[in-house]
């Protein structure tokens, strides 16, 4: 049976969106010199605001501001005081958390429950965690005199706009670097609100610069000769392009790219908990998660039963208005991404996999995709090999643990993996053999600033979070 819920919409009164938005350079909101573009609410297709597009002149100005702030202020400031600015920012994010959450949901399409309970609190936690490192870097294991790199160029994706900003800016600032960050074209608004927070924190001008724009703006930023380090989160194809662009320079690079994680369920797993983990693994944030558990590997003996439970559970998911507090599945972030999901799911059917979705009403306007499960998937299918980045699960089966490992590792990616079993020794053996940077055992999609995140193989290199994440922004003990 389906429970009926009365609508429980979160009010948008707390958010005041400017109809046109400038760049944030050297502590000031500054008009951009490129052609402005519009950002829309993907749940309604209504225009939310106009956003400035940074051209070459603007990129130069932002990098110059970051260089000046690095030379004159930030690299000379004590770690203790840098840390205090980060603590201030963490507190301001907490204070303005509802505003940030509503704005994120409006611009991104994710359910308010997720932006309110996951994105914004973890973003604040990242600043809080890294604030404490700022005056303790000599204890972090990077030699006795760890130094910042200089000006850092950061390019982030649209799936967790504010959270990815926090993952990038907090460690960069704690280690003494200054930042020019470009948010994704479709999700600039929370980054610009963050710029306001930097002003409220009295962060010295130029320490954080936010330039909005499309891929071309990102390319100019990455290629700027006065940039010392590039940090990118996004697709593997763009990550490879960046790795090529900076070849022959002294720029340091960290990449957090795509994934095609295996979520492996053994026959002794608690099935109900595993089903919750499977749902969280692939339908959290509409599946717009690089570490999503998009390949479900079920042990043959429990496959049928688990798929039945999973289908029953999916019928209770509520798709619709992201601002409704009872919504589980929000809007797909853009028409472009929706088309990609449609294309890949069509290939799944064409290649012979069996498609299933629960009955759900799709709103008339906006970009939506019903939760989808494919069974009878083989390893050769595109839906088992390519990152879909949507609410689409491909189910495969295995008989032995060795076969599970073989299939889990049969991908160029290596970002994350899930293991479900009650047997401790099997968890440890599987965790040891799977080639992935984050392994969730009897849980999935957990994130914490103290916990390093990042991939093996073509999922990128470098870590974000934890003591290992600091290494991305420090000159490590240089020697031969």
């Amino acid at each position, binding site marked *: 049976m389906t429970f009926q819920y009365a609508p429980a919409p979160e009010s948008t009164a707390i958010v005041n969106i400017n109809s046109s938005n400038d760049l944030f350079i050297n502590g000031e909101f500054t008009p951009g010199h490129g052609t402005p573009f519009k950002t829309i609410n993907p749940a309604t297709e209504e225009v939310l605001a106009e956003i400035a597009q940074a051209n070459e002149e603007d990129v130069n100005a932002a990098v110059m501001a970051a260089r000046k702030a690095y030379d004159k202020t930030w690299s000379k400031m004590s770690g203790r005081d840098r840390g205090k600015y980060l603590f201030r920012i963490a507190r301001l994010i907490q204070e303005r958390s509802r505003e940030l959450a509503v704005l994120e949901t409006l611009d991104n399409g994710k359910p308010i429950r997720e932006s309110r309970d996951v994105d914004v609190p973890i973003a604040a936690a990242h600043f809080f965690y890294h604030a404490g490192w700022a005056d303790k870097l000599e204890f972090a294991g990077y030699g006795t005199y760890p130094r910042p790199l200089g000006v850092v160029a950061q390019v982030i994706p649209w799936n967790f706009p504010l959270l990815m900003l926090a993952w990038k800016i907090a460690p960069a600032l704690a280690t003494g670097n200054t930042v020019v960050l470009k948010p994704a074209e479709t999700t600039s608004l929370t980054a610009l609100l963050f710029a306001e927070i930097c002003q409220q924190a009295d962060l010295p001008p130029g320490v954080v610069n936010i330039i909005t724009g499309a891929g071309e703006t990102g390319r100019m930023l990455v290629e700027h000769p006065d940039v010392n380090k590039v940090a990118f989160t996004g697709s593997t194809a763009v990550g490879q*392009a960046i790795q090529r662009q900076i070849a022959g320079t002294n720029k340091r690079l960290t990449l957090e790219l795509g994934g095609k994680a295996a979520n492996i369920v053994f026959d002794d797993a608690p099935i109900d908990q595993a089903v919750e983990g499977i749902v969280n693994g692939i339908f959290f944030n509409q599946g717009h998660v690089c570490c999503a558990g998009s390949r479900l590997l079920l042990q043959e003996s429990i496959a049928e039963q688990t798929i039945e439970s999973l289908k029953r559970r999916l019928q209770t998911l509520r798709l619709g208005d992201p601002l409704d507090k009872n919504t589980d599945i929000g809007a797909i972030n853009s028409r472009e991404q929706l088309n990609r999901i449609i294309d890949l799911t069509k290939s799944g059917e064409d290649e012979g996999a069996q498609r299933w979705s629960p009955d759900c009403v799709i709103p008339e306007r906006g970009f939506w995709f019903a939760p989808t499960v494919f069974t009878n998937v083989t390893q050769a299918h595109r839906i088992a090999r390519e990152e879909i980045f949507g609410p689409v699960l491909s189910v495969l089966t295995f008989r032995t643990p060795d076969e599970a490992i073989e299939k889990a590792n049969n991908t160029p990616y290596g970002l994350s993996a899930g293991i479900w079993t009650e047997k401790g020794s099997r968890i440890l053996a599987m965790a040891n053999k799977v080639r992935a940077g984050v*392994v969730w055992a009897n849980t999935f999609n*957990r994130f914490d600033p103290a916990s*390093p995140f990042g991939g093996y193989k073509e999922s990128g*290199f470098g870590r974000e979070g*934890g003591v290992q994440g600091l290494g991305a922004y420090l000159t*490590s003990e240089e020697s*031969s």
Partner: protein
Amino acid sequence: MIGNDRVEVRKTHKLFVGGAFPRSESGRTYEATNSQGEFLANVAKASRKDARDAVLAARTGFNSWSKATAYNRGQVLYRIAEVMEGRKDQFISDIQDAEAVSAKKATTQTDQAVDRVVWYAGWADKYAQVLGNTNPVSGPFFNFSIPEPTGVVAAVAPQDSSLLGLISVIAPIITSGNSVIVIASMNSPIPAITLSECLATSDVIAGNINILTGDPAEIMPSLASHGDVNALDLTGITDSELQKTLQIEAAGTVKRVRSAPVNPDWQATPSLSRLRAFTEVKTVWHPMGM
């Protein structure tokens, strides 16, 4: 021939791949000379095909070596040092020939090379304790991070430090469980060949360390673009254009790249940066509950 003069038996200098000593499949050799340009030996000139064969051997070696216990890896490394110690005289004479240095300097370099292997042998069962940790996440989870080997690493040994530099490149790569394909100093390859004979008679797993002699400019591009190579160590690349080409090729499979260091000091005690460069941090979460 008069008197006791004996015609010496000269050695054919070959590659070291998969625990064996093949000639180059191309049949090519090049002349290794001393610093005065005098002929020392004909040395195998590895081809791109030899490099691909070495990748295959290195992957096989990785599959065994990465599963060895840390204690065992430490012992195998220490065994390399033991065997090298017994061949010190040959290394000293090789280095003197290759680098035109005094016996004293060649002895110092050899001693340091052996000691470096011992240093890394000790790291095998410690580096994970230093580079790994538990993470105090805000929730009922046990969470830990451990470094693991990256996989198959293609390396270029320094051109000017034929043994100490070479061993300083190889040792940190294999200590954590990686396999390596290393291209020896092109002008001074003979100490590397002597080293390969030490490796063959120690307990190194076949394919774990593969030593090629030849031209990095010819061999490295095919390793940089090879889909089964995980990382590049460009220490011995002196041509910045070649380094750029290799960095571009590496992007095809998102390889980890350690670029050539500026004026490396091989005599100094190393940092952990080489060990760190060829490891991946894996983080594991598990709920805590009754």
